């Protein structure tokens, strides 16, 4: 079988990451001349089913309300064994990332993550991704079938709606709960805010910020003014100034905003790996030789403590 399956842990709306994921799936299915199915898991599955139905052949809603890794993995495995897909594509959320290699293993396939491009080359399915902290780009040839791949959000363009709406069906799997691990508490930080991966504008701070207070007192008001999401470098997160969920970089979030304003961030390759797909990067840094400037469209060499308060004034004035 050459079909393509998309696995979605639906927690929010039909966001840009979901649209990009479907777009990638649609194009892959078209190039294989096959069908595209989406498997929706999670509490928001019903609310997004119609959106998905516009671009896929079948929408399968799974009776697994809350995510549990072992049980969800068993459910997805069972559906994929039925559908026998050539490829399974997932998004870049926590759940997709942890499920991907295990799903591949159970299906006898091969997995790879953080794909920014997927194509078929003869018999092989190839995935482009960054390696060595973004310093190099690799094309990975997946040897076994199916290929199970999680993709970087927003790196793929959406698909056009189709003339016919896909069929929506419920799958009653009754997968027995695997209680070897159980989630006993779930906590959302900064609830209401969009995912960092979805942000159009990001204001990010690094080691040079110097503490949690300037993040709150200086950067936050600036971000609010710009309608931006807040982020940070690994150094700032490891110092405990801001939550780890803010971390951008090779080992944090990979973001794709239209503007990434890096404040007091040197731009170590580890960090750059997280923003290589940003459309525009700008920086405020005291060091004119800071590597970050090599990736910037514009910047200013100055202490952020002097720049940021003034910048807020100027932005307010310009917005009037």
């Amino acid at each position, binding site marked *: 079988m050459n079909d393509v399956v998309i696995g979605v842990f639906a927690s929010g709306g039909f966001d840009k990451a979901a649209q990009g994921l479907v777009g990638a799936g649609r194009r892959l299915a078209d190039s294989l001349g096959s069908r595209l199915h989406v498997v929706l898991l999670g509490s928001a599955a019903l609310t997004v089913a119609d959106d998905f139905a516009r671009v896929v052949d079948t929408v399968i809603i799974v009776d697994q309300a809350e995510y549990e890794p072992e049980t969800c993995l068993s459910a997805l495995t069972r559906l994929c064994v039925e559908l026998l897909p050539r490829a399974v594509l997932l998004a870049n959320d926590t759940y997709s990332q*942890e499920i991907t*290699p295990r799903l591949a293993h159970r299906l006898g396939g091969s997995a790879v993550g953080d794909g920014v491009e997927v194509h078929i080359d003869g018999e092989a399915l190839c995935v482009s991704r960054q390696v060595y902290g973004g*310093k190099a780009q690799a094309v990975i040839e997946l040897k076994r079938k199916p290929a199970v791949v999680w993709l970087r959000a927003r790196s793929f363009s959406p698909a056009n709606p189709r003339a016919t709406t896909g069929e929506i069906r419920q799958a009653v799997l009754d997968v027995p709960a695997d209680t070897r691990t159980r989630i006993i508490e*779930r906590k959302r930080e900064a609830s209401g805010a969009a995912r960092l991966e979805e942000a159009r504008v990001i204001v990010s701070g690094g080691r040079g910020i110097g503490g949690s207070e300037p993040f709150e007192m200086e950067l936050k008001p600036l971000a609010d003014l710009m309608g931006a999401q807040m982020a940070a470098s690994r150094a700032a997160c490891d110092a405990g100034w801001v939550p780890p969920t803010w971390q951008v970089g090779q080992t944090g979030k990979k973001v794709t905003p239209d503007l990434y304003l890096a404040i007091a961030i040197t731009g170590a390759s580890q960090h750059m790996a997280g923003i290589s797909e940003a459309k525009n990067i700008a920086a405020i840094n005291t060091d004119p030789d800071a590597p970050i400037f090599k990736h910037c469209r514009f910047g200013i060499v*100055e202490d952020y403590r002097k720049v940021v308060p003034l910048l807020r004034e100027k932005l307010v004035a310009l917005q009037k």
Partner: protein
Amino acid sequence: MNILVCLKQILDPEIPARDFRIDPVKREAERGTANLVTNIFCENALETALQFRERTSDATITVLCYGASTAEDSLRKALAMKADAAALVVNDGNQNPDPLTVARVLAAAIRKLGTFELIMVGREAGDWGAGQTGGLLAEELGLPCVSFVDRIESSDGKLRLKRQTDTGWELFEAELPVVVSITNDEHNVPRIPKVRDVMMSYRQPLTQWKLDDLDIASDEARAGNTYYEVAKLSIPLKETHCEFVTGDTLDERVEKLAKCIVEVTRAL
């Protein structure tokens, strides 16, 4: 409790991009002047294990590496950080084995080493960044897996695992045995071993095996590419010219900066 921590030795990921070279034929990075270091997330895992042992008196920590013979240095450092025992499986085949090969070798070594209730790995490595070892190892061993954990507590013969998610955190209760992949947070920054302990670590026993010593298809492990293969490796060319805002006063420069920001965000 017997804890096993997997470590990977990698090319120092902190080397600046200008010194980074690749060998396009072998499809891997050139060593150049870069140091070999233990992958940071593996050290975060070891640190998490050490702190767990400090809180629960009866735990032993074994560290395990699959890699070149130089990986002994990573194990010695782990012993200096006060791991209890160390084992190295020397890779005498493909030096860039795919994630499934690595998981199979590690699983075979773990079975040979004994019984472990908690198996820990770093969430991903700073070289290839595949992030698959934890999940594939769990499957090879038939165990459950919890990823992106940053804190482990003992609770009535089970574990409480706090893990990071996109939007916050989740608390797991896990039965033993379990595989856990560790991510960094402010509490598990790896400790610096004492000079004396570094010296002492070279006198401690270190188990060393070859692939042939393990109960595994060693020829397949040496080939290391039945799961996936790096078909191409390149350094992307990216040229950006940074426009530094100019002006006689700070006020003028920041005004220009503000205009640039507005221009970019409005155009979008």
